């Protein structure tokens, strides 16, 4: 084999190795853990009715507040675990310009309401229905719980994938109020509907 041909062979072998490493490095990566493209972008608008019905609540109406948007469902174990933290944090920040919005995900409003009846709810939070998962899709929800943080200007500045606790929620709000950008954090697993 001559020199030229040999170097072509080496080049091909090198490219093949690099190619294999790229494929191997991505193997097993959970696509739900990719950084949300919404971070740093204007939050998708929504106008959703409360679970009980009544006048819809729109994100535009909440502009000027730090808005915490959480997707939950009665069938989600992690959501049940974090619910008390969301409630207590919403209560604690009730006198500040912070609004909690919890959006029922892939279940009927009566199912969500039944769950809230036992899990409890904050007087300072909104509990909204999302027919057709339109808002969940707009926020790029893979599984729940997922919690988004929107700053006073309406920009998505934080996202928690998985179960939150009161300290993480509160500290994230504190950071946003201080002008920081918390970014995305993975705190645990998320869940799909059990029948999937």
């Amino acid at each position, binding site marked *: 084999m001559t020199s030229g041909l040999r170097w072509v062979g080496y080049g091909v072998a090198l490219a093949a190795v690099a190619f294999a490493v790229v494929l191997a*490095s991505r193997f097993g990566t959970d696509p739900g853990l990719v950084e949300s493209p919404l971070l740093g972008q204007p939050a998708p608008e929504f106008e959703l009715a409360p679970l009980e019905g009544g006048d819809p609540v729109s994100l535009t109406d909440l502009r000027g507040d730090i808005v915490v948007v959480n997707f939950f469902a009665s069938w989600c174990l992690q959501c049940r675990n974090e619910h008390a933290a969301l409630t207590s944090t919403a209560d604690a920040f009730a006198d500040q310009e912070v609004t909690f919005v919890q959006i029922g995900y892939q279940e009927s409003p009566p199912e969500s309401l039944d769950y809230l009846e036992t899990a409890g709810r904050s007087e300072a939070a909104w509990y909204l229905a999302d027919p057709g998962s339109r808002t969940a899709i707009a926020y790029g929800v893979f599984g729940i719980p997922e919690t988004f943080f929107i700053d006073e200007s309406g920009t998505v500045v934080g996202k928690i994938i998985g179960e939150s606790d009161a300290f993480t929620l509160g500290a994230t709000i504190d950071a946003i109020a201080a002008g920081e950008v918390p970014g995305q954090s993975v705190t645990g697993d998320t869940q799909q509907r059990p029948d999937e």
Partner: protein
Amino acid sequence: MPERLRTIVFAGLLVAMAAVLVMLMATNETEADRVESIGGRIKCPVCQGEPIANSPAQLARDMMELVRQRVAEGQTDVAIVDELLASYSGAVLLDPPASGWTLVLWIAPVLALGAGVAVIVWWKQHPDRGTGPSPMLEMSRARRLAPLLILASAFAAIVVVAGFFLQERSGPNSGVADITDQNLEDVSNETMEAVIAVNTDHPQVDGMRLALAERYYQENDFSSAFPHYFAVVESPNANASQVVTALTRLGWMAWQGNGEAATAIDLFDQAIDIDQDSTMARYLKAQVLWCGPGNTEEASALLEDVLAEPEVDDDVRRFVTADLESIRSGETCA
């Protein structure tokens, strides 16, 4: 007609027919076809490599419904796919995007093909390829170059893997404050309230309760401080020092806030029962005894006890001495 012209005309006709066929196919595409086509390119976010068009998952069905609505609204395929990409990023494309690391997936086959063609062309243009150095010499050169090849491959692997991990570090697990890195000074009262509310039975919550109560106390917000001091006193997990601090603060708030001298003295006594050396409890009790019922004798005795302690802080010693002199000189409480 010359042979060449006939060929050109024939080729032109073929191209025209193909163009007409493509146009017919495009114009005959129904909305349902478009929905299926778009749905076939979008990966179901909760499935394993399955397009939303074929997935029974609820999220996939909801996404298909969104695609159906957007098509009915007259949006272009590109706009519909872009809308989903804006929410989910390229992670929902079945065909990886031709950018970033996945660009390799698109380039590699082309490079491999190019290399193969180059080898064949070179092979054909060098008919004397069989007259090169002897196979034994080639083997020897190959052995010499093998380590170089291995090193180069390892380097490439390291670069790719390092790039992958650096990319991951800037993505998930970055940003949101980690509880273990938090300095309590940076945490708002609201956050502490929220944490305490969901951890009322936690064995270590009393420390946070006391810290929060102290903040309120320093701000003269006695009504907010009171329930936390009271909870510390009642807590089975609070240590003696925490309970003494809470009792002392409750006593002083009872006196300062409501002028309840008897209640205050009772609370100071409870603190002193737990820690007889508590400087703060004895000093504040002396203050209330002097300023409330006017019991200067007991107040003086307490202050003298405090001064007898060798480890009393200089500032405290100065205050206690001044108060003791005032009592002895018959001054009224300021």
